[in-house]
């Protein structure tokens, strides 16, 4: 924690420059990574919703991020059409976009919450949690 605090203080003065620089901005580096599943967790407990939403404690959603660059390999779960899309993109990069990094498998969640002070509902939501990502 002390090391992080020192590092934070040291970099505070140049933080704006850092964010605006495409070569050092973590967001840009992150986008250049290959398509894969990433963590997104919404904590109902930390949001103080636990007296209202009985279960679960949070929503473990995940999301897909990264690029679908040539050559598409097995790690990207590419569809056949994604390979075609990549080839056309290579021919006309200004006109045709690359394939999209998107969920290939989704699973449901169930949420249990109070409707009012006495009635309760258990609701199933389909296709809410990303299980795997791929290039489409």
């Amino acid at each position, binding site marked *: 924690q002390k090391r992080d605090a020192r590092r934070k203080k040291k970099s505070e003065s140049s933080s704006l420059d850092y964010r605006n620089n495409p070569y050092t901005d973590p967001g840009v580096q992150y986008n250049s990574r290959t398509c894969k599943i990433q963590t997104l967790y*919404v904590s109902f407990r930390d949001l103080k919703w636990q*007296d209202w939403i009985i279960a679960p404690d949070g929503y473990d959603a995940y999301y897909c991020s990264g690029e679908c660059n040539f050559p598409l390999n097995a790690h990207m779960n590419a569809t056949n059409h994604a390979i075609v899309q990549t080839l056309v993109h290579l021919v006309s990069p200004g006109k045709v976009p690359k394939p999209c990094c998107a969920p290939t498998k989704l699973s449901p969640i169930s949420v249990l919450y109070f409707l*009012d002070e006495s009635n309760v*509902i258990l609701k199933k939501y389909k296709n809410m949690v990303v299980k795997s990502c791929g290039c489409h």
Partner: protein
Amino acid sequence: ERMSGLYVDNGFDQTIVHRVISQREKREVEHEILNLLGLPDRPKNTAARPPQVKRSAPKFLLDIYKNALGEDEDEKPIGEQQRRAGEFDLTGQDFRAIDQSDVIMTFAARNHHVPGVRHERGKRLWFDVSEVPPGEHIISAELRLYRSMDVKNWRKNGSYMITAYRVLKTENGTRELQYVDAVNTTAGKEGWLTLNVSEALDHWVNNPDGNKGLYLSVHPADRSVHEVRPEDVGIVGFRGNPDKQPFMVGYFKSSGIRESKVR
């Protein structure tokens, strides 16, 4: 300061950064997630007095959530051998209804006064079904009553018939009842009793003004004496132990139309 509650991986291996978002951003994200889940706002009257999970109705659904849905929430339903009846004595019919349902709702019994209804020895139970989303298909509904052994008047060898009626009219203090379902209970049996009240719930959802509740009548099975009070045979009422109070559960199939409530 409150934690944001939103945890996003920044994409770097082994380095997870919890970005602190502004209050305005946080409120927007909260509203978006609430909207996505069809929960546009906190329920009424719950800010000052949080609802109690120890009551029978929330406990029932929590039991289903823990034991009947499966741990990994996978596409296929949990295997029969892995299922547990739990403290609410879930049956095969219950599990089938759970598998078919998109929404399961419980309704706590209330002592809602309806002018003109005279109470005899039976008990009237009323349920607020106004929150049932329109267009939801009712798969089934059941009334759940807890029968306790902790009663003085219980005849050791007796068996009793518990009958539920739907209250139809209340003109001039007279009451018209329509038979809904009945269940037999015998000496030595303690636990949850279930009655099929699908028709009654369907009627109340489609005719809110006609919701005058259910009338619960208890007779000895041999009809040797007149109607007795449900409490006398151990039926727990809405003033009994919170985790044993009567409630109704409805199993619904979604219409597929996503709710769009105004924020």
